[in-house]
């Protein structure tokens, strides 16, 4: 056990491990690129959907059930399925990651919208705001803390799952995990896993801190 940890330490701290096309720096950048793009696409789908459902109150059933659907979705299965349908490209990876991220974004956006005090919405309408003004000037800003929570959770999930890109021969930190498994190199597997865990936790903490700073004027 001690041997393993020591080897892991050496692996992570050796200079050559960090450079080159198979280096940690490059793999990390790839990993973050996949994750950010997938989360952005998911946000482009999930945010309007959540806002629409929250504003109109129609389709609440969808928003609520999407959450459990998202949890039940087998990500690797989805990658394989889309891979078989579309052939070798990043498409299956993005489809799977987006499918993973959308539910968290939709349900949190919807929850944020429904948590807006009806009295405040009524007052906004009564002052003469039109539907879109109520949405963008009142509901959206008030739902923003929960919307950001949804985006943060989605991003963390995607970062943790983006290792599957390597499963279909692309890059990212998953490379170490899958290559390590193929080469029976446990240190490399562990190194990849630790790196994924560390950036997931670091992102979570820093984004939480950002949220607290941005919404410091809000009451609970």
């Amino acid at each position, binding site marked *: 056990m001690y041997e393993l940890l020591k080897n892991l330490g050496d692996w992570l701290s050796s200079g050559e491990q960090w450079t080159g096309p198979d280096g940690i720096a490059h793999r990390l950048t790839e990993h973050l690129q996949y994750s950010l793009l997938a989360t952005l696409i998911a946000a482009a789908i999930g945010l309007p959907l959540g806002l629409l459902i929250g504003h109109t109150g129609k389709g609440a059933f969808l928003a609520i059930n999407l959450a459990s659907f998202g949890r039940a979705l087998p990500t690797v299965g989805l990658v394989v399925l889309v891979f078989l349908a579309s052939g070798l490209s990043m498409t299956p990876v993005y489809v799977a990651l987006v499918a993973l991220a959308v539910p968290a974004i939709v349900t949190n956006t919807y929850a944020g919208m429904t948590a807006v005090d009806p*009295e405040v919405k009524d*007052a*906004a309408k*009564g*002052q003469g*705001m039109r539907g879109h003004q109520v949405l963008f000037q009142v509901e959206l800003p008030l739902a923003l803390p929960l919307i950001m929570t949804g985006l943060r959770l989605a991003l963390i999930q995607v970062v943790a799952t983006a290792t599957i890109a390597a499963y279909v021969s692309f890059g990212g930190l998953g490379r170490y995990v899958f290559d390590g498994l193929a080469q029976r190199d446990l240190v490399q597997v562990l190194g990849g896993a630790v790196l994924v865990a560390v950036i997931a936790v670091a992102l979570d903490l820093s984004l939480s801190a950002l949220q607290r700073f941005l919404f410091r004027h809000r009451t609970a």
Partner: protein
Amino acid sequence: MIQFDAVHKRFPNGTTAVHDLTLDLPEGGVTVLVGSSGCGKTTTLRMVNRMVEPTSGTVRVGGKDVTEQDAAELRRSIGYVIQQAGLFPHRTVLDNIATVPLLLGHGRRRARSRAAELLETVGLSAEAGKRYPHQLSGGQQQRVGVARALAADPPVLLMDEPFGAVDPVVRTQLQDELLRLQKELSKTIVFVTHDIDEAVRLGDRIAVFRAGGHLVQCATPTELLARPADDFVADFLGAERGLKLLSLKTLAEVPQGPAPQGDWTLVLDAARKPLHWASKDAELPVRPLKDTDSLLSALNESLASPAGLIARVDADGVLTGVSSREDIHEHAGRAHTEARVAA
């Protein structure tokens, strides 16, 4: 200014909120809609700015049918204050007040300077403008709600139980402030409350509603208290409605004279301002009254005062004379009779 013409409102669930209402509210002055909960007073108010649409009949503001106007524009032209103020928690107090001017497309700078002006009008400090609503007390939030409604200087102000959620002391303060503001601004105000005392204090006219959305009586407070239309109104006004009537009459016409000799004498200071009542071996506080004070407070003071006398003072607090319990009582009785026989 505001006309309801055979207005009927039935909600989708089948309940009738307002039943065949015909009511004409003249320009200027405060009309209070009063009644127990579920009597349709709030629905009536909300039909003025189209927050609720009538099932049948017409509501006109300034002669124009409200349903023929764009709803958002109509609402911007009518001030609206609700219970709990309904302030936007993510905007500063100043930006809350600036809401309607901004919606009307006035520049940010102009809207903010107008908002700062109103902050003063409703008795808040400039510093309060930078705070967020949750940092203010309930009473202060209500003031902001009033300021927001006044920001675009609308001729009509709708107030839906605006002081319902604050404690009695603050409520009285806010009522006084509203009366003071109304003296300056002369808006056409429609005010909803379930509190008959608030209605009597604020209303130039009071419209009493009964469950099922029926308007039972619309009259001046004096008329209402002196001649309730039926038992329902009389019950609603309560057993002390005779005393409430006295709260509307002033002391001005009650005769006064020099203090008579007796066991108790009124002690004055050098400026002839009353200090207290004194007898051979005791002292009791005095509460001097001005001509503008009500007959009710005069009656109350005459009961509390040891010699049955009230001290009358001018605006500066200088003694002008005293009035006896008997004079006040007789005058109160006469005020009642006059109100009851007046056509």
